[in-house]
């Protein structure tokens, strides 16, 4: 479609013909041309106003529902993002008031029944990676502690899943197996650390500079793992 009729009524000659036939001379007021020698305003004054919005009580309710939904999804495991957490040992005032339900977000929390999904999606899916600011020594020192916590965590999760979902029954077998595998993995602390390091390097490149990442930290991120949960604990 030709642009709006500002400026000369140029365009294919067809339009010219039509305009002339219809008695609208190009350059007349029907195809408005600014007689002043300046470019037409970017946002010309409105000819008519929009009709007022009318929603009423029903509308308010709908909007509240929408806010609820979006809020829920935001906090749910389904909201996937590149996660960045400060890993120094400073306790933050803000940590206390962050949403305490932000616990382990893993794909397993999203997926209800793996048998409904192609197997390729299941293999090697790690829980959401947390980028750490590495300090080599602290890293190593942490790992044994992590393993302990991981085992505890795993038990908790297993328990939760059992009571929560019947569906897991089918895949339960596979999952406990998986859990055992992961346990083995974690006991191999060094290789784990290396793995984590490598991936961290990659993610660092993905996520941009530290400055930006830090800036986005405070609003939405996971809690500092020292105080509360262990995000790195794999679930299966």
């Amino acid at each position, binding site marked *: *479609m030709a642009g*709006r*009729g500002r400026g000369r009524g140029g365009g294919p000659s067809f339009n010219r*013909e*039509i*305009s*002339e*036939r*219809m*008695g*609208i001379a190009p350059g007349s007021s*029907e195809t408005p041309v600014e007689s002043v020698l300046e470019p037409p305003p970017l946002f010309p004054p409105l000819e*008519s106003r929009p009709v007022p*919005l009318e*929603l009423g009580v029903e*509308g308010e*309710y*709908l*909007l509240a*529902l*929408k806010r609820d*939904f*979006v809020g*829920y*999804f*935001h906090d*749910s495991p*389904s*909201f*996937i*993002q590149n996660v960045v957490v400060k890993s120094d040992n400073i306790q933050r005032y*803000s940590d206390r*008031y962050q949403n305490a339900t932000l616990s382990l977000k893993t*794909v397993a929390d*999203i*997926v*209800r*029944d793996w*048998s*409904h*999904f*192609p*197997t*390729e*999606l299941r293999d*090697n*899916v*790690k829980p*959401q990676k947390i980028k750490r600011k590495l300090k080599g020594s602290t890293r190593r020192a942490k790992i044994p502690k992590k393993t302990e916590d991981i085992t505890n965590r795993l038990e908790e999760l297993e328990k939760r899943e*059992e*009571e*929560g*979902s*019947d*569906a897991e*029954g089918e895949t339960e077998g596979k999952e406990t197996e998986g859990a055992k595998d992961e346990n083995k993995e974690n006991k191999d602390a060094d290789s784990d650390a290396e793995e984590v390091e490598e991936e961290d390097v*990659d*993610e660092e490149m*993905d996520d941009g500079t530290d400055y930006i990442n830090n800036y986005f930290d405070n*609003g939405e991120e996971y809690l500092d793992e020292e105080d509360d949960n262990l995000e790195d604990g794999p679930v299966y």
Partner: protein
Amino acid sequence: MSVLLGKVCSLILEEHFGEIVSKVGTDLFQWGPKPLALVASSTKLSIDKVKQSLCVLLQYGLATFAPGKSGRVAEYTIQTEKIFSLLRYPRYLYLIKSKFGVEAETLVEEFLRVGFDSASRLIVKAATRLQESQKGSDNASAYLSTLRDKFVSLVNKQFLMRCPSPTPVDEEKGEKPTGIPNLTVSKTQLHLPPTLNMKALTQLLEGEVADAGDEGVYWRVNFDRFHQDFRDQIMVAAIARRIDDNASEIFQLLLQLMYIRTDPWVRVSNPIPYSELRDTLRKKDPQSPILPHLDQYLKIIEEDSSGFITRVGDSGGGQFCINMHKSFEALTWTCIENIIVERFGSKAARIFRLVKDRRFIEQEKIQQIAMIPAREAKQLTYRLMHENFLQLQELRKTMATNAGPNKTFFLFHIDLEEVARMILDLSYKALYNAMNRRDFETNENRRLIEKKNRIHSIALSLQAQGAPAEQLQEIEEMMAPPEVDLFNKVMRRVQKLSEAELHLEETIFLMQLFLSYNMQ
């Protein structure tokens, strides 16, 4: 598929599930069905992230998978309609609430939140939530049986439907597992409610392990069924506006009777006899003031230019058909005309209706019949054509192939489908703009919003602990009055934009519905 629809869907995904899921979804939208590896390479995301995103998309039914050509690699297809339906979740819930009550609403909300899940699990979840929100003296188990009943009702009425299950690999037949499950569901299973063990449900509620009897059986929301009701609501409201409330009540009954004998999405219903309508009304309300005038109302509805129903026979006191396609054609015309009135003025709308009535008409006739001064008429006609509301057809007066403007008829006409598509695109764009702007407003004032949220949650927790008023006051004062003002302003803007989005979704629904009937 419309490019604009794709853009809107990207925003919807981003709003609900974040940027990464949105990237994956957009990639699938732009390139069509693809396997996992290709998505990863073109989005440049890590394989893990892509897997997670696909899991999310599949869980919520926003994408599906199928074996690709080779049969061994799964290809993922994005379901744009389902993504768009995310915008309608509040409407779905409101419908359930009005029709079935708050327990059913909570239950459906659980389904929407999770995508698909087993009945027992979600009933238990809903019971817990209801207990928390109602803060009644009943414990949660009191809700269980109501929820179970509501669940069965929802399944019977087809608001919920059974998810397809994987067919087991028959190793005896030599089938090998491909890693790509083949999901099927039979028609009978689709709306067959499960029998749930109530005792087990109570146990689950307590946190114990129990088998409620529906292992491996999953349910999800049937969006089409909701859309059916939305469609009916539009028609009923239109009749109420055009005629009166009694007529719309009658029309509602007609719709009810239509479903007994006709598939809900056909263009024209099977005939409904007058006698049946009368009996139904009588049963519903024997004292109804409509009864003595029932046949009159039917006549009026039938004769109205909107053409919602037609009388097709005389047996049984008259047989009536509902014209779905025609109704939505009339509604689409009205919608377009109303847009023209606001955008170009009432004289332009008059011209449009005139061209619609005459089908093909010359400029001169337009001026004459519409009683608009020649110059203004030409201006408006040209403008409507320029914006693609009117189309131009040339007919040569002579046999010569190069007849000039003096030897050709220029006839205006309207291609309704083309105009409807244009309006749909306009609406997508307006929706995109509103969402974009809302995002912008939120981001610009992000720190402020976060601060307010923090203060709010602190205040709430302090209140729960029974803190004294002075402490609460202190917390409130953490935000200075001008900040509070700005916050309120921003909230008002966001609110307004959200309202606009709701309205736009309604227009989009209407246009999509019409176009789908047209393409049937």
